[in-house]
């Protein structure tokens, strides 16, 4: 029964992490930096927790106390998250700078991860030093926790209820594990959990104040919330406004600039953003058949509950077909060609969305367009002045689009609409006005009454002067630079240091981002070799590198996977699960090895070298879909094995249970922090994997001398 302790550790760690992350990005602006920071702090506190726990005097009651604190702090952190905006005096939906995100995520991860990190060490102490067993059970816990969360909780329950289910489960386990009278502690938790059930809606209502919160729904992809202001309905997805209804201006902007280029178009493919009026606008073109691709079916189903009949009728109309799929995966597989393709998605703020703004994607779009076909997408901009980060973002998008289409025009204004085609496109407002009149579109916003000022020659020219005058980097699938520019633009909203830091990184030569850290790593290796006395610590160096390598490759593989196969919830979940199951199997094998010798470690590091080599060589190739699953499983397997083997070797010399685990987490922390925020967009996946391979090779070479000093 006692094996449940480490099992619970892995189980709660993984599920809490998933739900905290899901809730966090629903309340704070979620770009790649936000994701990177939470993950990084999560790992950092875990590492610190395990280091400090090594110094804690072990007793059974302290041991279980940490479990209770987890149960208490997790719901507390979810509630705190919803109220934290009041501390910073920001409104719901207000864009937050890095500081509130930093402070909130540091605090929340401290509450949860510090005990988690400590519990690993306490578990090892509880099992009298059997680190392999603890690690194995922890890996099993996280595998099962992951599968359960991804496949049974998220699809069927809200984040809140899922968290309570997990807490309930842990409480039951604790009741079974506790001894004698102490069982009462677990019983006492029951009213606490029952009380929490009723807190979900009121806390959300508070969060949305002064707006009128109606209902929310957690879907596979995010948190949808409906807000009402007077007769107007607004749908939010992870805190970002998806649409307000009615909002004629946005609805018209979404489709008309592209459609009016081809007034006789027969077919339109709309990728995202069809609900809230855009479809109704497109239906004004009498001969047009519309196919609308939306990733999250709930966006439509949930909206249907609240939208008026009129709008629902448009969506159910004969000329409209709706597909629930990832837009990119849809385009990959569709056989037909369209006259107009409109991308109406949020801006490229994450690697996930950036896939829709790359050279490769635009090329794919072009293949699915008829000869005269038109493609368009929109980005929010600034009407009267374009600052440097925005200029970089718009330029990179412009040149990327221009590389694919002969003719590219961009509509100026607070929203820039990019239009690309191999046939002519025009921004002549007289001409566009005539077409709008001829078709009797009766537009309120996109019509000659506003276009004459918006498309004034002077306005167009001043925009083009900004975005065309300097060559810009092309946005590629594997070097997703646009999302980095988007991050800098976000950072300039605030007068703090964040934009300076990001701009600094965007300007320094690659040497400082790649070669310099690698050289530093080499120097450290040499120093360790020279200082013979601390040699046994060097068993743990591969553990640190393994932490860094596994999290980095995990991020890299997920991005590459989405590029090739689209964002499919179940598949992404399965990828994570494959890795965790690998960890478990690796640890299991590690535990089975009778006598661990340093040769084992050298061999595993050799395998790591080979695996990273494969990643490097295969990253630019379109592989079979099964490959990334196998790869992540193998990486997990080697990671788990390496952890057990290296720690056993180390523990023979010194009884310090926390340090190996801490180093693993510190390595992961470094990877999480640097990769998604800076290295991936600036360096790109191919070069990055190459350097990860190099680092692993150096580590292998470094280990070779240990073979000779065999005991």
């Amino acid at each position, binding site marked *: 029964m006692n094996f449940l302790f480490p099992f619970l550790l892995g189980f709660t760690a993984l599920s809490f992490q998933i739900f905290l992350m899901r809730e966090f990005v629903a309340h704070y602006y979620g770009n790649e930096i936000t994701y990177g920071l939470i993950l990084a702090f999560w790992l950092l506190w875990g590492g610190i927790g395990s280091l400090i726990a090594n110094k804690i005097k072990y007793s059974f009651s302290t041991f279980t106390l940490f479990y209770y604190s987890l149960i208490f702090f997790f719901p507390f952190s979810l509630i705190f998250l919803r109220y934290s905006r009041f501390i910073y*005096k*920001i*409104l719901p*939906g*207000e*864009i937050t700078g890095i500081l509130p995100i930093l402070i909130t995520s540091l605090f929340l991860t401290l509450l949860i991860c510090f005990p988690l990190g400590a519990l690993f060490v306490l578990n090892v102490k509880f099992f009298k030093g059997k680190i392999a067993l603890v690690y194995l059970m922890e890996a099993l816990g996280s595998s099962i926790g992951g599968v359960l969360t991804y496949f049974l909780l998220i699809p069927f329950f809200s984040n809140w209820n899922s968290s309570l289910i997990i807490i309930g489960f842990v409480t039951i386990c604790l009741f079974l594990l506790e001894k004698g009278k102490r069982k009462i502690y677990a019983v006492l938790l029951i009213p606490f959990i029952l009380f929490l059930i009723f807190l979900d809606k009121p806390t959300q209502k508070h969060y949305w104040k*002064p*707006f009128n919160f109606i209902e929310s729904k957690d879907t596979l992809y995010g948190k949808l919330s409906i*807000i009402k*202001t*007077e*007769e*107007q309905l*607004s749908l*939010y997805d992870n*805190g*970002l*406004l998806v649409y*307000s209804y*009615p*909002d*004629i*201006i946005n609805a018209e902007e979404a489709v008309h600039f592209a459609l009016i280029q081809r007034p006789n178009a027969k077919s339109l493919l709309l990728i995202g953003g069809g609900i809230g009026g855009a479809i109704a606008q497109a239906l004004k073109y009498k001969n047009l058949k519309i196919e609308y691709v939306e990733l999250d079916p709930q966006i439509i189903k949930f909206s249907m509950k609240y939208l008026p009949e009129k709008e629902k009728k448009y969506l159910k109309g004969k000329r409209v077909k709706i597909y629930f799929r990832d837009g990119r995966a849809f385009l990959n597989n569709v056989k037909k060609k369209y006259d107009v393709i409109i991308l109406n998605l949020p801006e490229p703020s994450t690697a996930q969305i950036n896939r829709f703004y790359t050279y490769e994607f635009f090329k794919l779009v072009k293949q699915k367009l008829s000869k005269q076909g038109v493609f368009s997408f929109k980005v*929010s901009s*600034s*009407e*009267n*002045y*374009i*600052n440097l980060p*925005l200029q970089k973002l718009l330029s990179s998008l412009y040149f990327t689009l221009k590389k694919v289409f002969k003719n590219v025009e961009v509509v100026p204004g*607070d929203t820039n609409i990019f239009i690309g085609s191999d046939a002519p496109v025009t921004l002549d407002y007289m001409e566009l006005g005539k077409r709008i009149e001829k078709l009797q579109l009766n537009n*309120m*916003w996109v*019509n*000659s*009454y*506003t276009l*004459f*000022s918006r498309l*004034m020659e*002077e*306005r167009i*020219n*001043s925009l*083009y*002067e900004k975005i065309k*005058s300097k060559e810009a980097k092309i946005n590629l699938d594997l070097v997703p630079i646009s999302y980095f520019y988007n991050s800098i633009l976000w950072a*300039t*909203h605030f*007068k703090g240091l964040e934009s300076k830091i990001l701009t600094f990184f965007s300007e320094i030569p690659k040497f400082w981002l790649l070669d310099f850290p690698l050289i530093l790593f080499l120097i450290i290796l040499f120093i360790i070799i020279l200082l013979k006395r601390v040699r046994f610590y060097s068993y743990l160096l591969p553990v640190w590198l393994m932490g860094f390598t596994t999290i980095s490759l995990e991020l890299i593989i997920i991005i590459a996977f989405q590029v090739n196969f689209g964002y499919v919830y179940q598949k992404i979940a399965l990828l994570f699960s494959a890795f965790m199951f690998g960890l478990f199997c690796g640890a299991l094998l590690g535990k089975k090895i009778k006598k661990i010798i340093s040769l084992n470690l050298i061999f595993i590091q050799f395998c790591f070298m080979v695996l990273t080599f494969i990643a490097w060589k295969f990253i630019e190739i379109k592989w079979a879909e099964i490959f990334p699953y196998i790869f992540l499983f193998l990486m997990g397997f080697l990671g788990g094995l390496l952890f057990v083997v290296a720690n056993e070797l180390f523990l023979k010399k010194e009884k310090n249970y926390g340090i190996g685990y801490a180093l693993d987490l510190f390595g992961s922390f470094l990877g999480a922090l640097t990769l998604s925020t800076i290295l991936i967009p600036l360096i790109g996946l191919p070069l990055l994997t190459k350097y990860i391979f190099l680092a692993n090779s150096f580590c292998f070479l470094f280990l070779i001398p240990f073979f000779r000093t065999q005991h």
Partner: protein
Amino acid sequence: MGKISRRDFLKTVGGAGLVASTIPSSFLIDLYALTPTRKLSQVEAWFYKKLPDKEIKCELCPRYCQLGDRERGYCGARENRNGIYYTLVYGKVCAAHIDPIEKKPFFHFLPGTTAFSIATAGCNVNCKFCQNWQISQVRPEQVENFDLPPRDVVRYCLKYRCPTIAYTYTEPVIFYEYMYDTSVKASKKGIRNVVVTGAHINPEPMKKLTEVVDAIKIDLKAFSEEFYKEYVRGELKPVLDAIKIVKESGKWLEIVYLVIPTLNDSPEEIRKMSKWIIKEVGPDVPVHFSRFHPMYLIKNLPPTPVSTLERARNIALEEGINYVYIGNVPGHKGESTYCPSCKNVVIKRFAYQILKNNLRKGKCKFCGQPIPGIWS
């Protein structure tokens, strides 16, 4: 890339400033092609007091920044250098465009014409919903500026055939001296000058400004001190005082109230404001209720529901304000001007376009009722 770009070509021909100052206006290079300058201005500022130890106290706006040597005011556009206060943005324009006057918005001022609109970087308040935050919430050296001394503003204005210069986008109060001098120069050429401002300014400079400009549009951002404190980082009272000063000066005044859902849209607040307007500046000052469109930090707030704007308009009409408009809702009937006497449409608008003008010499063509404004 064998061809040289337009910008390179202009560089070789000579600096933009040189071109502008030696060649007649019709030969001015296009605005967007002007070469940016790195230099800021060093023109002594107005409205400040020298204090001991090289300190100064700025008396332009209600912030009263008290600054030591080498310190900048809150606006970022003025600096104390050795005990003398300088404006750094005199003639340093960061945005210049041609806009319909209806976009400012001015509805009783030369309808259907364009305004040559300019701004320099900086602002003395910090609204969470700023449309032009990229230039208002930064220091002048953080943006691209180009040289446009008052004389050149006038020339460009003539070149683009704009009857009016608008000081707008950011807060013109912070480029007061430049605005003032340009207005004086422009008036001599028969060009009108309009100011689009939040009016977070002290009475004395406001009075002086009304002497040289023709019309002022004031953004009344709310009718509560709390809102000003929380979302604008300024004060309401100086704005109200400024409104009164403009009215007293006899210069044309229009008021814009940007309605942000649930933050400043309560019927009580609107009614209180309407009563105040009637009492202090009379029923003939046009009031625009503009629809908030998500911007800057509150980019994810819902836009204002049209019914909220209609409610606000009805309250203001009920209270007796004669010309109440709804802004940013193209095609709405609240965009047009109605004769307060015979209720006919005097000026029919659609977005920024004038569809019909039933004014004859400033009077309603149906009943002869004079409609206040600057019509020719």
